[in-house]
Structures are given as C-alpha cells and as structure tokens.
C-alpha cells in the first residue's frame, strides 16, 4: 500500500509549489487514475513517489510511505534498492526512454542484473522471456536481440512495461504511457495493463489527461489542479456526480460523442 500524506514540492526556480498538500492512498492491487490539465503536478507527484526528483533543486515535505517505508526522505542508496525492485516506472515516450544502443532484452533484464547480480544468466533470461510473454511481445527470442529502433511504438511501450515488471514490483507508476501512441495501440496497452493487474495483483498509478482512458481502466480516480488535489472518488462518482467545478469542466471538455455517453 502506498500512502502520500500532505506532499509539498517546491522547485527552487519557481514561485508556486508544483505540488501543494496532496494526500492520496493507493491500495494493494488497485489501479488509481490521476488526471488533471497540463502542468497540474501529476508527473511531479509520480516522480516524488519514484524518488526521481532532483533533490538539490527542490524542497520536499510530507510523507510518502510504501508499505510503511518512507520514500521521500530515504537515503539515495536505500531508494536505489527500491527502484525497479519495488517500484516500476513507465514513461510517456517509449522511444526516447529506452537506451538506443542496448538490446531490448538486456534492457528488460536490467533490474534483475542490478538487484540480483548473483542470479545465473539462464535464470535471468527465463524471467525476461516470461515478462515478454506477459506483455505479449511477439517472438521473444528474436525481440530479445533487437534494438529499440527496430520495434514499433506499441512494442517499445510493451518492452518498457516488461522492463518495469520483470522484478515483480508491488507498484507500477505509469506517466501517460499511452499518450504518444495511436488509438488502437492505446486500447491494446490498456487491455494489457488491466490483464497484468488482474493476474498479478500489482498496484498502479495511472496518469493521464484523457478522462476516457482513465474511465476504462480505473475504479478510483484523483483529480489535480494547480498542484492541489481537488477531488478523489470512485470513477462512477467523479464522472456522474462531480463535486468540484474544475472536474465538471474537465468532463465537459471530453469530445461530445463520448460526452453524451458520460452524461
């Protein structure tokens, strides 16, 4: 279980807090949606969970607890042991998020190499193939030896997901993982995430500014505006009985074809 309590993030170069007072809980096995307009602080929230914020350039306060362990103020070395092992991250641009000169299979197995350096190579390969099968990458043996530029965008994102889950973390942070993909691929990736969640019970934080996507995937959703959490609730409640005017505006801005359906 991940608990965020009164999280504040202030970049030294900014006047306003990027995140001001966010309190959130992600239960075990849950997919929580996080929506909000551009610049509302969704990525910063996720990055502070993942410990990826440049600590020298910002002030952090509050608590981020993963199964009771403090992530926000943990030592760097301690965080590194959690990275990839307990928390997996998938970013928006699969192409640029992958090392262009490293074989796809090696990248997928990287967390295993880092966190279990004594693991025999054969075992590592077996786990990589397993993860590749989990994310439904075609021809695992062949794909293992390919380089990122030889994969399609959808396959790249599948490989990124495989790399994030290969060490079987308990939490997966997905920062707009489908935004860069076209609609059909996007739908496939959403199906995949649902399946992974169902089969492995991994909890997920799914960030998106597309409410429709969130509605398909998440039971619970949180809405952010200007660094603040304005509304949290079940997807049903937030969509059909939005409490906050900002949420109402977000819902209205969904294209009408879907808008009718929503109302």
């Amino acid at each position, binding site marked *: 279980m991940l608990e965020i309590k009164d999280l504040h993030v202030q970049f030294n170069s900014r006047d306003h807090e990027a995140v001001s007072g966010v309190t959130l809980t992600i239960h075990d096995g849950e997919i929580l949606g996080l929506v909000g307009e551009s610049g509302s602080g969704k990525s910063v929230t996720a990055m502070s969970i*993942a410990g*990826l914020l440049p600590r020298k350039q910002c002030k952090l306060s509050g608590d981020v607890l993963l199964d009771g362990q403090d992530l926000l103020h943990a030592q*760097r*070395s301690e965080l*590194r*042991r*959690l*990275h*990839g*092992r307990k*928390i*997996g*991250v998938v*970013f928006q*641009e699969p192409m*640029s*998020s*992958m*090392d*262009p*000169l*490293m074989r796809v299979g090696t990248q997928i197995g*990287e*967390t295993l190499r*880092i*966190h279990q350096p004594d693991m025999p190579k054969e075992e590592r390969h077996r786990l990589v193939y397993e993860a590749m099968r989990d994310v439904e990458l075609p021809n695992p043996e062949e794909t293992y030896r390919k*380089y990122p*530029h*030889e994969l399609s965008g959808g396959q790249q994102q599948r490989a*990124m997901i495989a*790399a994030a889950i290969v060490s079987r973390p308990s939490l997966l942070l997905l920062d707009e993982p489908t935004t860069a993909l076209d609609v059909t691929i996007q739908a496939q990736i959403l199906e995949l995430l649902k399946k992974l969640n169902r089969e492995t019970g991994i909890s997920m934080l799914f960030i998106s500014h597309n409410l429709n996507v969130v509605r398909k995937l998440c039971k619970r959703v949180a809405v952010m505006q200007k660094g603040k959490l304005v509304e949290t609730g079940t997807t049903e409640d937030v969509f059909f009985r939005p409490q906050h005017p900002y949420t109402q505006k977000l819902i209205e801005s969904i294209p009408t074809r879907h808008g009718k359906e929503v109302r």
Partner: protein
Amino acid sequence: MKYTIRRIWMLVVTMLIVSFMTFLAFELVSGDPAQTMLGTEATPEQLAALRHELGLDQPFFARYFRWLGGFFTGDLGSSYIYRQGVWGLIAPKLSLTLLLALISFILITVISIPLGVWSYRFVGGPFDWLRTTFNQLCMAVPPFFVGILLCWIFGIILHLFTPGDFPALRSDPGGALRHLLFASICLCIPRIAMTVRMMRSTVIGEMEKAYVRTAISRGNDRRQVLTRHVLKNSLTSTVTFLGQTMAELVGGSIVVEQVFGIPGLGRFLVSSISNRDYPVVQAIVVLLAFWVVLAGTIADLINQRVDPRLRLGGGAK
C-alpha cells in the same frame, strides 16, 4: 558488412577524385618540368630527350594512370631538385610523421577519454571554473610556444633529447622515440583539452536524455548510469571527433617538426613547396588527403559497429 563494403568503395572513389584533381591542378600550374629542370640554355634536343625520359610526351590520361599506379608500385616520378625517386625521398619522412601522429593519437585517446568522463563530476561544482580556465589555457597556448618551452626544459636543461638533432630511427630507436615523444606532448596538449571539453559536453547532453531517467528508475547509481548507458552513447561523437583529430594531427605536425628539428613530412613539404618541386608536393598532397579520408572512414566504420541505427540501409538516421 554491406555497409563496410560501401564505405570502402566510397573511400576508393573519393581518392580517385582527389588524385585526379591534384594531378590536373599540378598539370596546370607546373608548366614544362623539362624546361624547369634544364634551365633556359637547354637545346630543343635536350628538352625533347628529357621530356621523353620523364614520359611527358605521353597523352594526359596515360600519364595520370601511370602516376596513380605509382602509389602502388612506389614509382612516383623523380624530384626536380634532388633528381631522385619521389617515393624514396618521402618514405622515411612519412614514417616519422606518421609515427609522431600515432604517438600523439594514442596519448590523446588514453588521456582525454578518462579525463573527459572524470571532469563530468565537477559540473556545477565549486572547482568547475578552475577546470574551465585550465582547459582554455591549454587550448590557447600555441604548440610552437609549448614546443620551445619543452625543448628548453627537457632538452637544454635536462638533456633528455637534443633539439634540432634528431637521432636516426635505425641506429638509435630509443633516442628517436624519446625525441618524438616530447614533440607529441606539445602536439597533444591543445587537442587533449579540446577532446576533454567535447567529451564533457557530450556527456552532459546525454545525461539530460530520457533514457537516463529510465536507468535511474531501474536502480542504477550515478556511476552505473555513466558506465552502462551514457558512455556508450557518447562514444560515436567521440570517435568522430578523434577521427578528425587523427586527420588534423599530420597537418598540425608541420610546426612541431620545425621546432623540434624532426626531419618529417611537414618540413619536407614546406621546403618542396618553396622549391617548386611539384612531383614531391603532388605526392604529399595525395598522401595527406588519403590520410584524412582514411581517418574519417575508420571513424565511420567504428561508429557503425557501436550504433546499430547507423547500420540501416541508407546510413543516415
């Protein structure tokens, strides 16, 4: 493999074009070599005889291909001044210059790559200005000045070598190498500074890329991010840069050979130009061009090994 063959084919074509342009250019500027060699008092019979001896009575293309073949057979005609075979004159000097370039290149590579990566540690730190200043100093000081300084300290005071008196490579290889080593130090200093600066900015640029964030999110520490990901990604620009350096080293050695008194190609080229010894100049020009094109080709072939994206059909992207 296909790429390798294509790249070598490109090298051959480039060299053919360069050699042809050179031959044509010298054909136009050199006038009548027989006249030049014999002077104004020569009789027409003497001129005709020499022209026949030099093969000047042959048609242009026949002469071109004979000369081109000379690069493989070693018969590049004879010098107007020394009345000797050009190849025999150039070869010992060429080997000295290449040796100087090679020593310098090795020094540059083994010193600047670790230094470049290491200097990344200081980015934004309190001593960064010191590093920048030192780096700029190294680039700004002209090699001939460093050369004079080195000659004075290590030659005149410490007697580690005798400036101006280059020992023969055959009889005293140790002494010759020592002499070359000091010359190459002087040749290297600004280039090491340039390479370090280039590496540093490449590493800084790579560190900003998204894959670095991914690497961190997987649990790599700073050192692992560098060694596993960033270094390899910085390699192609470094190799390209070093390829250019390799090419420029030969030209850059002219001044240094002068200061240290090394009887290399640079000095010979300068004196041959002022003597209008065209067959010699012509051969050196082509050899230097070949050196430049070869260095670029080798750099490209290495890069294509490193970066699979360069192996795609077009070679671009």
